[in-house]
């Protein structure tokens, strides 16, 4: 008798669970069937009146019914909760394409970016990075670099002369002198910085621009070493193998002195407007350090030798970014600066 009631309870409760339309209705059905005073509890109360051998069988059945109902309740409840959560979250929709508040990062000047790269490259090659002042003595800027007052090379550089008798450095080369005097050889150093020429400004001329001076002083430094080094270095700067050539160039602080050309990176030497159809682009002056320059910095040229070179940072930056007007670099115009 009791067993048929249990089967009936299972059937009717499962049906009621199935038709429950909300969490509340589901809960109501659960209380009616499985609650402390529910139908199942009622049936189990009656067990006392049943013979012991029959009671064991019925107990088993009762447990089975109870488990089935509880499990069905839990799974149905979970479905209701999931649906509810899904509905709530769907209501929290946002337009992810709305702009975000707050300040955006600014930018580093293109020359700074290039200078950082070049400093890193040289540092990796064991070079010191030295900074020198913008205002220099005539001694450092000219005399100590073998450019005496009567030397026509001073014509090549239009100098800003200052009221205190000094000048605005016309090249970063005076930092060579400072480096040689501060640190004895062997010495590897670069000196990036701002230099000045007293000339009219137009799209391709500036009175203020940037250079990197480089120098290596060691026991035996030859032209063959210079070629090797410049090739390695320029390969690093341009991120590809470059072909270089040296031709005679005159700079009073080197002997021999060279102009270094690289095979045009645009046309690979075939000839294009960038290289003026020559296949070569003049890139940097260089040479073996003049013995007089070494001697003036108390380095014995019989014992030590070196090479030096000057890279135009401004020019390299313009080449890298395709900047066609040099004035933009110091124009402070955000429309330009924010591009880097």
């Amino acid at each position, binding site marked *: 008798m009791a067993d048929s009631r249990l089967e009936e309870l299972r059937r009717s409760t499962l049906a009621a669970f199935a038709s429950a339309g909300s969490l509340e209705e589901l809960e109501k059905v659960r209380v009616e069937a499985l609650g402390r005073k529910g139908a199942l509890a009622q049936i189990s109360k009656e067990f006392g009146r049943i013979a012991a051998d029959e009671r064991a069988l019925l107990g088993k059945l009762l447990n089975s019914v109870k488990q089935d109902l509880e499990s069905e309740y839990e799974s149905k409840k979970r479905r209701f909760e999931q649906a509810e959560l899904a509905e709530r979250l769907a209501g929290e929709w946002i337009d992810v394409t709305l702009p975000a508040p707050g300040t955006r990062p600014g930018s580093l000047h293109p020359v700074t970016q290039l200078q950082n790269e070049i400093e890193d490259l040289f540092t990796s090659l064991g070079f*010191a990075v030295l900074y020198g002042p913008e205002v220099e003595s005539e001694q450092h800027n000219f005399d100590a670099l073998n450019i005496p007052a009567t030397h026509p090379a001073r014509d090549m550089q239009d100098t*800003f002369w200052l009221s*205190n008798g000094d000048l605005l450095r016309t090249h970063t080369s005076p930092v060579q002198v400072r480096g040689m005097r501060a640190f004895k050889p062997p010495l590897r150093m670069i000196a990036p910085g701002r230099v000045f020429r007293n000339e009219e400004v137009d799209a391709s001329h500036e009175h203020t621009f940037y250079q990197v001076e480089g120098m290596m002083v060691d026991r035996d430094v030859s*032209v063959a070493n210079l070629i090797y080094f410049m090739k390695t270095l320029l390969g690093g700067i341009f991120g590809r193998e470059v072909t270089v050539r040296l031709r005679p160039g*005159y700079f009073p602080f080197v002997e021999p002195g060279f102009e270094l050309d690289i095979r045009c990176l645009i046309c690979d030497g075939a000839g294009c407007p960038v290289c003026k159809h020559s296949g070569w682009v003049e890139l940097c002056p260089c040479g073996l350090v003049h013995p007089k320059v070494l001697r003036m910095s108390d380095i014995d040229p019989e014992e030590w030798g070196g090479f030096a070179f000057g890279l135009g940072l401004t020019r390299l930056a313009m080449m890298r970014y395709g900047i066609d007007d040099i004035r933009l670099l110091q124009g*402070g115009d955000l429309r330009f600066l924010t591009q880097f």
Partner: protein
Amino acid sequence: MKFSYDWLRDLAPGLAAAPAELEHLITLRTAECEGIERAGSDWVIEIDNKSLTHRPDLWGHYGMAREVAAITGVKLLDPVKPELLPAGESPMRVEIADPARCFRYSALLFENVKAGPSPQWLRTRLENIGANSINSVVDVTNYIMAELPQPMHAFDADKLAGDTIFVRLARAGESLAALNGETYELTETDLVIADASGPIALAGVIGGMASAISEETTRVVLESANFEASGVRFTSSRHRLRTDASVRFEKALDPENTVRGLARAIELLRQVCPGIRLAGGVADTRAPVRSIEPIHLPIRFIVRKLGKEISQAEVTRILSALGFGISETGDAELTVTVPTWRATKDISLKDDLAEEVGRMVGYDSIAPVAPRVASIVPPPNTLRPYLRRLRAQLAAQGFNEVYNYSFTNETDAQRFGLDLGEHIAVRNPIASELTHLRRSLVPGLFRNILTNVRYFPEFRLFEVGNEIHPKGEIMHVAGVLYSAQGNEHDFFEMKRVVECLFPGARLVAAEARTYEHPARTAEIHWRDSAIGRLFELHPAILQIEGLEGRAMVFDVDAIVAQRLAAAAEIRYKPLRKFPTSGFDLSVVCDLRTPVDNICDALRKLAGASLAAIEFVRQYVGPPFGPDQKSVSYRIEVGALDHTMTAEEVTAIRNRVIEGMRALGFELRV
């Protein structure tokens, strides 16, 4: 400098290289060619003057022909026939008063001269290299200048007073009416050529109009002199007059060339002025010849400098072809005599000879070799990584980096109330905005505001650059935050940025400078040192330019900041093992009392038990008076070895309250 291909081939007969090939060879071995173009049946090769600065000999075709002959291995033909020079006394006398400025003065007198038009070959040669044909006599002098190169000058002998030529410094008040139609006022630094009545030429630069060769001229004094380079350069730049002659003399020409020039002139004048006669011999006055030491040149030295094996025979061949005298003085060692045309200043060391050999073997023949260098740790540059970090942080905070000029000017001075007298001045400024050197980065940043307001209502800029003071340069980092709708919140945004750059920095109200907002100016203190300033730019400066907005500025001494940053040592403190307890305190005080003062007092009174103190809020309004404010702090206290009891915490709280009251603060408890 323009070179005629035909002319070079006259002097280096057998030259087989075509013009374009020759241009290429000259560029790689000697000097930079700027271009090549046809000129009738001839070709003209243009060489960059800057690459000839150190080579007086290359300002003439003969010198370039010597290079070409050495490069291509053909013979060089000397156009000068010294045997043409007449012997005997000259009817003229030459007196050099200043032998330091004129090393040699040679002259010849010609008679029965008729200066007419030059023959076509002479005109063509001169025109092809960019010179105008004047008349046959002048053309000959110009031809020799472009050939040997020896500048010469022809005077009409009948227009000269007396038979003595004086080479002397000009006297005060003297002037010269020159061939170009200008009159030059002379000073005692100008070297002149003079006759008995006064200057007839500015030495090495230009001749005088009064003694110029004309159609009436029958007797000519031909000057072939050698002037000291820097003197010519000085005079020529002072008078702003650069001539083909002065450009050459500036390079220190060969004094041996004066009489060679005269010999060449005799030959050419006989061709272009039929009937011309020499009157007497050469007048030749010269300073004592400087002896040039021969150079000892070990072959090993060349090999070491070039990094390429090269034989003694090859070195000898190259140097001989370039005119050097060679004798073998030892095992693998040469003694090299420098030819006069290279000895004036170009070559004196064995390093100079290494260059001669290197360029003639061809630098393209030297194989790259990795340098063998010592393993050394380079001396550190502590500023570099620090500046890089500052820049990166500023960029991350929305700042764009600008590079401004190192100059300042009258406009900046007026705007910012600066005294230009305290700035280093530029003695030769090219523009009115470049007259002085900047002692602050701020005026430049202000100019950047003016550039950008048209396009942007709000922006942040910074610069890392040198302040240039009479006593030296100080690297600064300065930034500006401009906003068209600016208010005091921008000030605190800048304060936040400053605290990001310099963690733990504090602001101390400071007396404003002329360009700073009088009530919004602070000194930035970091690690017990003043490192710079944070302020609102004086609104009047913006208003004068018609700008409504506000600009907040920070300006920090990067050197001091770097030193302080480097000095900081980080030491770990053990984490607390026992919980802390907190309580809030509200202090009522005068509206203008800095909250930092309150915080400092609270911190001090809480003493060693203080774990943290945090600003909660500031309140102004009822029930407090209009000149008052209430400032609240949360104070966390604790002990390192036990959990504080309620009684302990209360005792500390009472101590703080009593202490604050003793300091005159009112507490709301």
